[in-house]
């Protein structure tokens, strides 16, 4: 088992690297999308490597019943296996938009507990947005994932399902 400090340091080192490779104001978007795409690949991999446990999880129902079922899996099992806690609140408009709220998001807790450094928060969320999108993609759900923070370390991930 690896230690979480290691992941945290690696994560912030990756942000640092991507940021310095894409310097300049206008490159901010590219920096975020690079982090997002790295997260995407990791999210896919996590579901692949967890495939057996996903199957076990869904033993009684051979597949997820519906989209909501998949989202519940992300909020409970997936989030616990990655961040060791569940999503605190899941809301949906039943039209393909889900809002996942984490009141104490793991990768922000080291950063600040207030408005300080708020402008840096998006960089610390981009990887995780990709992570969720990658996981969903390998569970057969195509989506767009964005994140917003108003007060750290709480944040909301918005998942918009793309109808195929």
């Amino acid at each position, binding site marked *: *088992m*690896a*230690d*979480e*400090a*290691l*992941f945290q*340091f*690696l*994560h912030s*080192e*990756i942000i*640092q*690297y*991507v940021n310095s*490779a894409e310097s300049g104001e206008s490159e901010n978007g590219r920096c975020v999308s*690079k982090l997002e795409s*790295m*997260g995407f*690949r*990791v999210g896919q*991999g*996590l579901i692949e*490597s*967890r495939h057996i446990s996903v199957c076990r999880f869904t033993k009684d129902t051979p597949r997820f019943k519906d989209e909501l079922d998949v989202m519940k899996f992300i909020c409970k099992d997936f989030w616990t*296996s*990655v961040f*060791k806690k569940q999503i605190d609140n899941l809301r949906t408009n039943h039209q393909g938009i889900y809002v996942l709220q984490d009141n104490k998001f793991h990768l922000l807790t080291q950063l600040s507990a207030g408005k300080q450094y708020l402008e840096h928060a998006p960089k610390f969320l981009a*990887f995780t947005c990709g992570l969720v999108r990658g996981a969903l993609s390998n569970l057969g759900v195509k989506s767009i994932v964005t994140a917003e923070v108003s007060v750290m370390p709480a944040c909301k991930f918005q998942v918009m399902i793309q109808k195929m």
Partner: protein
Amino acid sequence: MSRQSNRATDSKKMNSELFTLTYGALVTQLCKDYENDEEVNKQLDKMGYNIGVRLIEDFLARSSVGRCHDFRETADVIAKVAFKMYLGVTPSVTNWNPAGDEFSLILESNPLVDFVELPDNHSNLVYSSLLCGVLRGALEMVQMAVDVRFAQDTLRGDSVTEIRMKFIKRIEENLPAGDE
């Protein structure tokens, strides 16, 4: 009290797949960004160094290991405490040179390479270079300059992974300028 501190370290355990896959994503990205493997190795080592410099604080705070008196003790702490704590493996310490300033860490398994296969066109890539940087950075913060490199790597067909560490010198405490 010791039980309490045990629990504190236990609760820090996490999904190592996440770490391994994230590291893989980083290496993949670096290979895209840089044309040449040497540059990737260098960048990984540099990032490792930055991590090591910060990781040592976390390590000293959590492990309650004091100052090492010689390089042998350092080797033991790295293998038995640090690797165990952060990667969950315990490498063996072997191949001491007669002067006692150089040794090898032998890793039966390297958690960083769990799902990895090196494509043929990356023959110069030292996939786990990050580890060298981490070790170098961490030791530098406790006044030890060391040289760290991979001597064997399972990814390149060797039977084990061997990290060779050589003690260079003690780093003297920097006195502020003008302070005799």
